[in-house]
C-alpha cells in the first residue's frame, strides 16, 4: 500500500470515530441539548488534539446536532417547542405518504429487509441499548422512503431530518414511552406485510404525534433541570 494512503486513513477515521463517540455521549445524556461543548475537556478525555475534535464537531454540525457559533465555540443543538410543533406534523405527513407509497410498491424482498431491521431493532430494545435502537429505528423510517422511491419526497424528508435530528438525542425516553414506540413499530411492520398503505400511513402519523409529545416532554424536563 502507498504510504500516503495509509497515513490518510487513520486521520480520517479519527474524527469520524470522535464524532461517533460524541453522538453516543448525546444519546446517553452526557452531553445535553443546549450544553456548551468543552473542547479542552473532551480533548483530554479522548487523548486527542483540538484539530480532529473540531473536525468531528463540524461533522456533527452538518448533521444538525451541533451549533458552531463564531468566537463562541460549539454547543449541542437544541430544537424549540415551537419548532417541534411546526416540523413534526409535516414529518408525519411526509412519512405517511412514504408509507402509503411503500406499501403499494414493496416487493417481498423489500419487506424482508425491513423485517430484518425491525428484528434487529427489537434486539437492541430488549438489551436496553438506546444508541443501537435509534440507529435501526432511523434505518427503518428511511427504508419506507427508499421503497417509496419518490426522490422529491425523500429530499424534503432529509431537509426536515436535519432540523429534527438533534431532538432525537435530546429525548431521553422513559421506559413507558419507549415501549409505546416499539408497539407502534410492531404495528407498522404488520401493516407493511399486509401491504395496507392507508393503515401504515395512519400509524406513521400517530407515531410521529407520539414522538412529538415525547420530545416536548424531554424539552420541558431540560427546562426544569436548567431552572434548578
Amino acid at each position, binding site marked *: 500500500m502507498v504510504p500516503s494512503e495509509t497515513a490518510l486513513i487513520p486521520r480520517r477515521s479519527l474524527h469520524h470515530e470522535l464524532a461517533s463517540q460524541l453522538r453516543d455521549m448525546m444519546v446517553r445524556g452526557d452531553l445535553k441539548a443546549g450544553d456548551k461543548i468543552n473542547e479542552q475537556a473532551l480533548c483530554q478525555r479522548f487523548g486527542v488534539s483540538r484539530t480532529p475534535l473540531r473536525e468531528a464537531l463540524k461533522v456533527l454540525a452538518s448533521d444538525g446536532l451541533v451549533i458552531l457559533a463564531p468566537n463562541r465555540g460549539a454547543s449541542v443543538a437544541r430544537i424549540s417547542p415551537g419548532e417541534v410543533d411546526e416540523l413534526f406534523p409535516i414529518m408525519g405527513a411526509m412519512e405517511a405518504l412514504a408509507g402509503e407509497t411503500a406499501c403499494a410498491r414493496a416487493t417481498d424482498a423489500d419487506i424482508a429487509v425491513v423485517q430484518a431491521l425491525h428484528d434487529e431493532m427489537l434486539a437492541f430494545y430488549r438489551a436496553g441499548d438506546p444508541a443501537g435502537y435509534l440507529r435501526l429505528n432511523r434505518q427503518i423510517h428511511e427504508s419506507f422512503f427508499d421503497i417509496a422511491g419518490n426522490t422529491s419526497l425523500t429530499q*424534503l424528508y432529509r431537509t426536515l431530518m436535519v432540523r429534527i435530528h438533534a431532538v432525537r438525542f435530546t429525548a431521553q425516553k422513559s421506559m413507558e414511552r419507549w415501549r409505546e414506540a416499539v408497539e407502534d413499530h410492531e404495528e407498522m411492520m404488520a401493516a407493511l406485510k399486509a401491504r395496507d398503505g392507508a393503515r401504515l400511513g395512519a400509524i406513521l402519523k400517530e407515531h410521529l404525534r407520539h414522538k412529538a409529545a415525547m420530545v416536548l416532554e424531554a424539552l420541558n424536563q431540560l427546562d426544569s433541570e436548567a431552572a434548578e
Partner: protein
Amino acid sequence: MIDFPIPAVPAYSSTGKRTGSQKPPGKDRMSSAPIVRHSLHESLVAPLREMILQGELRPGEKVPEEQLSERFGVSRTPIREALKVLAAEGVLQILPHRGAIVARITEEQIEELFPIMASLERLAGLLACQNATDADIARVRALHERMLECYASGDEIEYLRHNRLIHEAFFTLAGNATLSAFYQQILTRIHACRFVVRKNREHWQAAVDEHTQMIEALEARDAMRLAALLETHVTGTTVGIARAFIRRIDADAAPTEAAPAKPRARGRRLSGVLTD
C-alpha cells in the same frame, strides 16, 4: 369585493427561516399588501408568467426574447433579468447559448410531485381549520365568490388567480412557515401544469364543485373533511388537469401523423421526455 393581489415574492424566507410562525393567525397577514418594487425587470415577471399560464408561451418552447422586447417596449436586458427570475422558480430553463425555454413537466414528475402536493395541502387544510378566525373564513369565502364569478363569465385568468389565492390562503391560515416553504418549492416545479388554462369543461366544473365543498367545510370548521377534500382535489381533479394539459402540449408539439415520433423525440430531449 376585496381583492388580494398575488405577492410577487412569497411571504416566507426561502432559507426556511420562520417569519410567520411567531404571529398568531390573523387577518393582518392575509390582507397585508406585498411590497411594491418598481424595477423594470420585476414588473416584467408577472406578464411573462401570465403568458406562460395562458399558454401563449408553451412548455418546451423557446422564449422569443426579441419579440418580447418589442412587445413590452424594453431592451433585452430587463427581459433577460425577468427570465432569470422565472428560471430560478423553475418555470423556465436557461440553456447556454440557446436562450430560455419554458420548462416542461413529465408524467413521471407529475406522479412524483402531486402526491406530495396533496399531502401538504391536506395538512394545511387541517391546520387552517384549527386556526382560522371568522374574519379569515369570510375572506376566503369572498375569494371563492369572486372565483365563481370569474368561472361564470369564463374569465380563466382571473379564475386561476383567485384559485391560487384560495390555496395560498389555506397555507397562510395554517401558519406553518416550513409547510408554506415546502408548498412553494413543489408549486414552482409543477407551475407549468397546475394553475394553467384549462380547456376541458368537465375538469373545470369538477374543480369548481370541489372548491365549493372546501369552503363549506372551512365554514363548518370540519378539519378532517377539508383535509380530505384538499387531498382528493389534488390527487384527482388537479392531477387530471395537469395530465390532460401536458398531453395536449405533447400532442400539439408532435409532428404530423405521417412522421414517426422518433426524430422529434431527440430534439425534445432537453425539455423532458414526453414520448410515452
